[in-house]
């Protein structure tokens, strides 16, 4: 495997606006492992510190004495700890993914799928809506003046405030299940796509636009042959942000409805019953899901841009 150095191209080389950090896995291996190790040490330490009170409480009631060893052993193995130890979360994830049938209501894979389907649907709708709005904004001066302020205003409303409204209103007109959650995902994910695509579609310089004019190109030719390909690096970066936002949207969408399925429902149920281990495993699952989804987009980005000759 060769290590790509972004600056090695000839001077005339045009890289995307966002460096592609490809192929430096070997360089980043030890730093990543070090940071991960450090986090685990901090986490175990914090677990002792936060859970100690309950251990001492129990000991006082039963009249037992707490030694250093028994303190550590107890704080890392409580049933409802303030902060579960990493291995407790790992065991919980193992038991609820590998050891449970996928169709089971207690399977984390099942709940992840429920959230994932809403995420992907919302992401798809958000990307479509965002791209259409961006095209309108770039090609229509009236839309440029009128739509953009609304797009920005839409994101200043706290999603937690508007999510229940969307669910209740859609329920009232008979829409329930996947779609209301996907709508909330869309609400969060169209924004980065609009902003990124407006910038991307406007990225061709004046010379390139003048060239098109000298060839008497139509507006649609200018769009398909110049503006759209030029926007691709911006598009993929927007997609990564949109995907993460979409997942947050789907989880938030599961909270106010008292949903019975999905990662959001697991978080909610966990907090009702003080099941901190369940909360943490759902959180870790959500993070892993987001990392995987963004990673897939990164892969598609690399392949596409390389084919277009726009990446190393």
């Amino acid at each position: 495997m060769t290590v790509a150095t972004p600056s090695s191209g000839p001077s005339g080389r045009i890289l995307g606006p966002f460096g592609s950090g490809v192929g430096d896995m070997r360089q980043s291996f030890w730093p990543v492992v070090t940071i991960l190790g450090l986090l685990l040490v901090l986490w175990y330490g914090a677990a002792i510190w936060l859970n100690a009170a309950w251990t001492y409480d129990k000991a006082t009631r039963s009249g037992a004495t707490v030694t250093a060893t028994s303190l550590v052993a107890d704080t890392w193995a409580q049933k409802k700890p303030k902060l579960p130890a990493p291995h407790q979360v790992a065991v919980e994830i193992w038991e609820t993914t590998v050891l449970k049938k996928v169709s089971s209501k207690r399977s984390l894979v099942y709940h992840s799928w429920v959230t994932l389907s809403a995420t992907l649907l919302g992401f798809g709708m958000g990307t479509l809506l965002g791209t259409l709005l961006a095209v309108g904004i770039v090609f229509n001066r009236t839309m440029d003046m009128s739509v953009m302020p609304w797009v920005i205003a839409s994101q200043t409303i706290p999603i937690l405030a508007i999510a229940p409204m969307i669910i209740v209103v859609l329920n009232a007109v008979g829409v329930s299940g996947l779609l209301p959650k996907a709508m909330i995902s869309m609400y969060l994910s169209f924004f980065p796509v609009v902003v990124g695509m407006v910038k991307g579609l406007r990225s061709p310089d004046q010379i390139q636009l003048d060239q098109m004019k000298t060839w008497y190109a139509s507006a649609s030719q200018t769009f398909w042959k110049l503006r759209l390909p030029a926007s691709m690096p911006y598009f993929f970066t927007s997609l990564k942000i949109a995907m993460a936002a979409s997942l947050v949207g789907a989880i938030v969408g599961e909270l106010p409805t008292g949903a019975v399925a999905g990662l959001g429902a697991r978080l909610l149920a966990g907090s009702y019953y003080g099941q901190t281990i369940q909360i943490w495993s759902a959180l870790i699952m959500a993070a892993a899901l987001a990392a995987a989804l963004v990673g897939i987009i990164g892969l598609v980005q690399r392949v596409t841009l390389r084919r277009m000759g726009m990446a190393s």
Partner: protein
Amino acid sequence: MRPLPVISAKNLSLTFETNDGPVQALKNVSLDIEKGDFVSFIGPSGCGKTTFLRCMADLEQPTDGAIQVNGVTPAQARMARAYGYVFQAAGLYPWRTIGGNIRLPLEIMGYSKAEQVSRVGRVLELVELAGFERKFPWQLSGGMQQRASIARALAFDADILLMDEPFGALDEIVRDYLNEQLLRLWARTGKTIAFVTHSIPEAVYLSTKIVVMSPRPGRISDVITSPLPKERPLEIRETPEFLEIAHRVREGLRSGHRDE
């Protein structure tokens, strides 16, 4: 009767409205360019030479006077794809190969696939870039990129070539080479060329007609018809005739400055 001039400007004026008030980029410019001419426009920054070229290309609209290209308005000439325009920067698309970049105007103008292939091959030959068709722009040097952009402007059947300081960003050696190539290309294709430049030797070496312009307001201060033969080796730049024309151009530029 003389044939109609390819480009004809009469009392052309153009005023830009800027935040600092109006700026007169061109004032009463009149000029005829005959078929097969190689006309250079030379002058300091702000003399309106690029603006004049952009008026011919319908990229700027004159505020007063008249201009005709091939006997029609610049807008009609642009719609008829009567000219190829070479910009200061090559402006190649990074996501298209050299061949793909040259094919771009042909795609836009609706040439058939077979025609596109044969034309791309022919113009690459013409600018001596055969074999680079599948390379991406970043794999080529600046001089080669600019040659590719000239090939792109030659790919369709335009009799007029408008060039806006195409070699301005290149070093002296590459520039000499490209100037020589451009003259050969002009002799082979018989196109009418309007060429904007900052360089006196470049203007004198290339042109049949040199238009000296001066700034504020942009206007023509001298038009020199070159007595040099059509066949011009690089060494011609050391002959007394060449130096004499260069001297006259320099005088023209200086007088333009004295007016201020």
